[in-house]
């Protein structure tokens, strides 16, 4: 894109390069190290990726091109991150074009979508980048007019000289600006919040119009000349080995071009399970041919890995004792023993699948020792690693294009489909292959949100204060390390708020592949802990929000290493008080069988208090309204997308509780297969959702996750208030009247 002279402004932290665009104009390219506090936020991330990039170009016609480097999975970053650049650049949003970057770690640093990290990581650097470009354009205009740059102003992509009334467009000085030495990113002047013209405006997603016209954009829409379609038949249980398959019979099936048995690497987590690829001219024909394979599997590795066995083992682990200690504050044992009131309860929740609307798919072309891949992935750089581990493909031999993803929710942080298509493409060099999973593949081969069990105890003093709290958590793991996304969070409230507290853990071995699901950990821990706290509050003669406000006490910050930033009790208090106000908490619905429930949680740097108004008739639960109060910092970047994230999180949580979502295993074989037995939310269950932003004076943080966790216990607490039935196991299954 750039040629000739490149000017570099260097400082200790940042590389900022300015260059002349090929057709004239300014290109500004930055590689910015991440603050240490944010760098470690993504689990499993390597330090080499702990930097951000930004790229902005201004063409002679004034068009501003901003590169969007992160995967777009519906969370809206392809719009919201460029908004940050464009606002400080002080251009008009209509001038902005957004280009999706390919995967290139050297050029772009980290490229991923996960952990609600994009907003906090990019808030400062993206704005600095826009401000730097603006400063250079202003400097170029000042030199042309021979005036002091400080006397010039900018607006909507133009530079104004108030002294003379003249003005000039950014495009007209962009080439001149490209010859200047870029400023130090850390000293460029940023706008005051009141000066924002783009940040904070509800803007329509950059790809929305295209999607509404049905134009190709998703991984599923990838079309390449001569492309063939593939399915990958794998064992119904994880760890299954291929015994035999009738390759010739499948080859005789209509439209089938290739049938390729593939030996996995024996490590389902690295993504290559044993399987048989069927490649055909049309995906449906490939899928039809599966039944001809008459395939036989050795499933012995998964024997005994059944939901009923897990349940029995978890109960045995709880009965056996306290597990491995994870956190001990004070002397909970003694305080529980001496408490005026002591209560105990067990909670559990099932494995659940991600069930993204766009089934896993990926396209690849292998030729001349190189592979080109088109992937809807949340963590493509991890995909490069997986290709190397499973297939020995060097990252330098891969060209990796990011497509829009039809949902992520954590599923696409794993790249098994990418490894599979690469293995298939390698076996038919020169032919572009599009691997598409059926919905059944997608449900059964998920990296499931792990099931979990909690055994809680609490001690309440004579004055009604919560003095001791303990949780023995039973999860999955090898005894030393929890399985992926199966770990506890030692910062889980009421940790730090109760003087005597013990958290402990036991692990069950599993062959099931587990993974991160939207608000990993929190999506389950919040249900269990906030439900039990509701029980505690009632036992103490009060209600949950009152108990939480009492526990929060004086405004202070409590270290919460698992949450990426400390827990600020003042921010928690503010969202709780706001939710009580917006929901008119003290006003109880007069109808029998209808009540409100409350819950609070802090996850992914966001503070959320939620109130659910639900009515129960027999086994039917109807949610009327959900009030959400959230604090994700001083500024909502794009209210249009932000409100969508909150509503989506609320509906997601309600679906987990109310539609019957549970994945069950018999000897490792997943019993669910499609939306009839793993249901998702549908329009009729959708409540009114009221959102109140509580704006603290903290930098903005992400919204993909933190609004989800509280809605589950807010709902189940409402069901208890309405019926007297305490929901201690998900999904909600009430007896018909």
């Amino acid at each position: 894109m750039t040629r000739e002279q490149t000017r570099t402004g260097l400082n200790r932290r940042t590389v900022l390069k300015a260059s002349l665009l090929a057709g004239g104009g300014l290109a500004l390219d930055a590689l910015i190290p991440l603050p240490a506090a944010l760098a470690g936020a993504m689990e499993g991330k390597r330090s080499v990726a702990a930097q951000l990039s930004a790229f902005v170009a201004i063409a002679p016609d004034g068009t501003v091109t901003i590169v969007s480097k992160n995967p777009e999975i519906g969370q809206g970053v392809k719009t919201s991150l460029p908004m940050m650049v464009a606002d400080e650049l002080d251009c008009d949003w209509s001038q902005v074009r957004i280009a999706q970057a390919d995967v290139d770690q050297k050029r772009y640093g980290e490229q991923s979508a996960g952990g609600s990290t994009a907003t906090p990581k990019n808030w400062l650097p993206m704005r600095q980048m826009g401000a730097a470009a603006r400063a250079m354009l202003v400097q170029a205009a000042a030199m042309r007019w021979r005036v002091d740059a400080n006397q010039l102003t900018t607006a909507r992509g133009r530079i104004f000289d108030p002294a003379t009334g003249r003005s000039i467009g950014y495009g007209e000085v962009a080439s001149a600006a490209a010859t200047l030495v870029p400023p130090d990113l850390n000293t460029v002047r940023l706008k005051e919040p009141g000066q924002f013209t783009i940040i904070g405006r509800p803007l329509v997603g950059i790809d929305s119009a295209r999607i509404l016209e049905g134009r190709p954009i998703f991984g599923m829409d990838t079309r390449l000349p001569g492309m063939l379609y593939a399915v990958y038949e794998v064992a119904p249980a994880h760890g299954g080995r291929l015994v035999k398959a009738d390759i010739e019979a499948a080859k005789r099936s209509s439209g089938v071009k290739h049938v390729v048995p593939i030996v996995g690497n024996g490590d389902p987590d690295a993504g290559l399970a044993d399987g048989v690829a069927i490649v055909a001219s049309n995906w449906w024909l490939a899928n039809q041919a599966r039944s001809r394979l008459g395939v036989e599997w050795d499933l012995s590795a998964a024997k005994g890995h059944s939901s009923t066995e897990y349940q029995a083992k978890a109960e045995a682990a709880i009965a056996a004792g306290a597990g491995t200690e994870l956190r001990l504050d004070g002397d909970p044992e003694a305080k529980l023993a001496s408490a005026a009131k002591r209560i105990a309860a067990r909670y559990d929740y099932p494995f659940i699948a991600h069930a993204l609307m766009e089934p896993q798919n990926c396209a690849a072309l292998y030729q001349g020792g190189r592979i080109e891949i088109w992937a809807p992935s949340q963590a493509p750089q991890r995909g490069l690693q997986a290709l190397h581990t499973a297939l020995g493909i060097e990252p330098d031999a891969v060209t990796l294009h990011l497509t829009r993803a039809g949902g992520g929710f954590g599923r696409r942080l794993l790249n098994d489909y990418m490894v599979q298509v690469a293995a298939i493409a390698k076996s038919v060099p020169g032919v572009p292959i599009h691997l598409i999973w059926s919905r059944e593949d997608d449900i059964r081969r998920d990296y499931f949100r792990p099931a979990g069990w909690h055994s809680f105890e609490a001690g309440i003093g004579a004055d009604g204060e919560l003095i001791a709290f303990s949780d023995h958590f039973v999860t999955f793991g090898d005894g030393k390390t929890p399985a992926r996304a199966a770990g506890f969070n030692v910062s889980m409230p009421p940790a730090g708020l109760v003087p005597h507290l013990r958290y402990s853990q036991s692990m069950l071995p599993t062959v099931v592949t587990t993974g991160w699901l939207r608000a990993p950990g929190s999506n389950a821990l919040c249900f269990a802990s906030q439900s039990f706290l509701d029980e505690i509050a009632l036992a103490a003669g009060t209600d949950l929000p009152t108990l939480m406000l009492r526990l929060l006490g004086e405004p202070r910050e409590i270290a919460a290493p698992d949450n990426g930033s400390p827990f600020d009790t003042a921010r928690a208090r503010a969202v709780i008080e706001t939710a009580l106000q917006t929901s008119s908490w003290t006003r109880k619905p007069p109808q029998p069988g209808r009540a409100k429930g409350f819950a609070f949680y802090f996850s992914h740097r966001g503070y959320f208090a939620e109130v659910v108004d639900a009515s129960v008739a027999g086994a039917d639960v109807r949610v009327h309204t959900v009030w959400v109060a959230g604090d994700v910092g001083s500024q909502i970047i794009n209210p249009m997308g932000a409100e969508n994230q909150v509503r989506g999180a609320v509906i997601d949580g309600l679906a987990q509780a109310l539609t019957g979502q549970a994945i069950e295993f018999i000897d490792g074989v997943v019993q669910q297969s499609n939306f009839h037995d793993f249901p998702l939310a549908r329009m009729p269950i959708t409540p009114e959702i009221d959102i109140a932003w509580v704006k603290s004076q903290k930098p903005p943080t992400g919204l993909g996750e933190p609004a989800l966790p509280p809605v589950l216990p807010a709902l189940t607490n409402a069901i208890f208030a309405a019926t007297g039935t305490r929901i201690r196991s998900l999904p909600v299954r009430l007896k018909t009247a």
Partner: protein
Amino acid sequence: MPYRLNINGAVRRVDVPPEMPLLWVLRGELGLVGTKFGCGKGLCGACTVHVDGAARLSCQLPVGSVGDSKVHTIEHIGATPIGARLQQAWLKIDVMQCGYCQAGQIMSACALLGQIAQPTTDQINSAMAGNICRCGCYNRIRSAIQIAAGMKEESTRDA
């Protein structure tokens, strides 16, 4: 088997087995990828198209049964007055998150407004219940339908 299909106002020829679902004819044979694959079992609505004006699940529709019927897909829907109004409403309040199910949502909404110009909330819920949105954009889908039907101001993007 050779078929002549009437798709979006044009005759398209394909040579495929009669059992092949229309979805895979559209996507695989004709390159019309706007119609989406979601479940393959008629459970999610992502593959919704119009057959002679009625919303149909193309993953459950063997191409051999289409005959001379007029098939319309998301690629064409902007050329119809209701479809264009729906697309505008969808954009005004930016309904979507990931967007993958939205073609199916629009096709179902378009069939609904073709039958009932100003549907009640219950009618909307029931007509749209076959279309899953994993991102949970239902509040805005409902609002967008009401905006397109002239029943609601565009400023009220979330109710």
